[in-house]
C-alpha cells in the first residue's frame, strides 16, 4: 500500500486499488493546497487495472499523516457541499411553492372578478 523508505517517512508512494481519476484528482487537489507538501501527483500505471499511485513528498511530516489529513479535508468539503446543496434545493422548492400559490390566488381572483 505504502511504498517508501523505512528510514525517511516524509516521502512515499501510496498504491490504491479499485480507484481511478475520480478520487485521485480530488485528493491531489487537497494535497496540493496543504502547505506541508512539496510535491504531489498521481499516475495510473495501466488503464485496464483499477490502480492508482499517489506520490506525496512533504517538508518533514510523515507522508501518511499528510495524506490522511488531505482525505479528512476532502470529506469535510463534501459534507459542506452536501449541506449547502440540500439547503439550496429546499429554498428553491419553498420559493416555487410560494410562487405557485401566488399564481393560483391571482387566477382565482381574476376568475371571481369575471
Amino acid at each position, binding site marked *: 500500500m505504502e511504498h517508501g523508505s523505512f528510514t525517511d517517512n516524509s516521502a512515499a508512494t501510496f498504491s490504491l486499488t479499485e480507484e481511478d481519476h*475520480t*478520487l485521485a484528482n480530488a485528493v*491531489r487537489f487537497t494535497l496540493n*493546497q496543504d502547505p506541508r507538501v512539496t510535491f504531489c501527483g498521481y499516475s495510473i500505471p495501466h488503464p485496464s487495472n483499477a490502480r492508482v499511485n499517489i506520490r506525496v513528498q512533504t517538508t518533514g511530516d510523515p507522508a501518511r499523516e499528510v495524506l490522511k489529513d488531505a*482525505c479528512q479535508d476532502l470529506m469535510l*468539503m*463534501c459534507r459542506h*457541499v452536501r449541506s449547502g446543496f440540500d*439547503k439550496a434545493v429546499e429554498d428553491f422548492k419553498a420559493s416555487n411553492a410560494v410562487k405557485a400559490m401566488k399564481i393560483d390566488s391571482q387566477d382565482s381572483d381574476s376568475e371571481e372578478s369575471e
Partner: protein
Amino acid sequence: MAGQGEERGEEKKKFSIWDLPDVPAGQLPPHLELQRTRVLCNKDAPIHTESVLYSGAYASMGVDNSLRLDHFCHNFRVEVVRLTEEDMEFDMIGIDAAIANAFRRILIAELPTMAIEKVLIANNTSVVQDEVLAHRLGLIPISVDPRLFEYMSENDQPNEKNTIVFKLHVHCKRGSPRITVKSDELKWLPNGSELIKESRNVASDSASKPETYTSFSCSQDTLPEFANNPIAPKYPDIIISKLGPGQEIELEAHAVKGMGKTHAKWSPVATAWYRMLPEVVLLEEVEDDLAEGLKSKCPVNVFDIEDLGKGKKRATVARPRACTLCRECIRDEEWEKRVAIHRVKDHFIFTIESTGALPPEVLFTEAVKILEDKCERVITELS
C-alpha cells in the same frame, strides 16, 4: 512587500513610483488575480486553464494560497436555477474543477441502479433475435429506488432483496394486424420467478413447491414501499419489439443492482455535465455603429444596446451566461482589443438529467456521499 519589488525595477523609468497604485498586502495585484481565477478564451486557444493549486505559489508576494476550510465554507454557494422531476440545473460557486469533475464521474458511473440483467426466454418466434431482445430489455429504465435493494454476487441466490422479476408474454394471433410490443407489457411478478427449473433429483417429494429460478421467501409487495405502487418501467411507451401474425414472445427478466462502471444500462443519469460560467468584458466603450454590429454578431444575443440620449448608443453585456463561446465577437480584426471573453474558474453550471429511478437532487446528494465513502475507505486503509 509588493511595493519594494516594484521600486527596484522601476527606478530607471522617468515617473514617480508614488504614482503606482497601492497593492493591499495579502492580496494579489489585479493581473495575477485575473490569471488565477479566470480562463482567458482568446481567438486561437484558451490560456491559464490550469488552476493554481500549489500552496506556496504566491509565497514571494506574501499571499497564502493554501486551502483553508473556513475560507471554503464561507465562500461556497449553491444556487438552483431549474428543478423538475427529470432534470435540474444548478450553480456551484467556490469549488474547484477537480471536485466538480469527481461528482460528474460518480453521477455517471458509480451510482447504483436496477436494470434487467438475466433474461430467461421460453419462446421467441419474433424477428428480433434473443440476444438483441435481451440487450434492449436491459436498457429500459426501471422506476424503483435502488437503495432498497442489495447487490447480488455470483454465489448469491436470487431472492427478494436483490432481484426484481418481470414477465413479458405477448402473442400476435393469426389474422390480427401487426402489434408493437411496448415496455408497459413488462409485468412485475412480486412473488418471484414462475419458470420451473428442471430438477433431475427424483428423490424430491412431489408435495413440495417446484423449484424456480429465484427463491423469494416473501412476496415483494408485502414490503411497505411497494404495497401500493407496483414496480414498472419508468416510461410505458418504449418500443421493445414488433410482432407479425403468429409470432410470440414469452420471457422472464430478472433485474439486479449494478453500477454504470460495469455497463451503461446501470447509469442513473441520461447524462450529467458542467460548464464554467462565461464572462464577457468590454475593454473599451463600444458605441453607435460598432455597437449595432456587435449586437448583430452574437448568435445568442449576449449584448444589448443602451441608449445614451442625443442619438448615441452603447453596447452592454446583458446575458453573459448564455454565451456559448463561439468567439464570433472576437473573430474579426480589431475586435480582440474591444471584447474579452473569460471563464470563471470556480463557478460551475451543473446540469443533471435523470433517467427516472431517482430525482436529480437525490442523485447529486448520493454522489457526494459516495465520494465521502471513498475518502473514508482510504483513511481506514491508511490507519
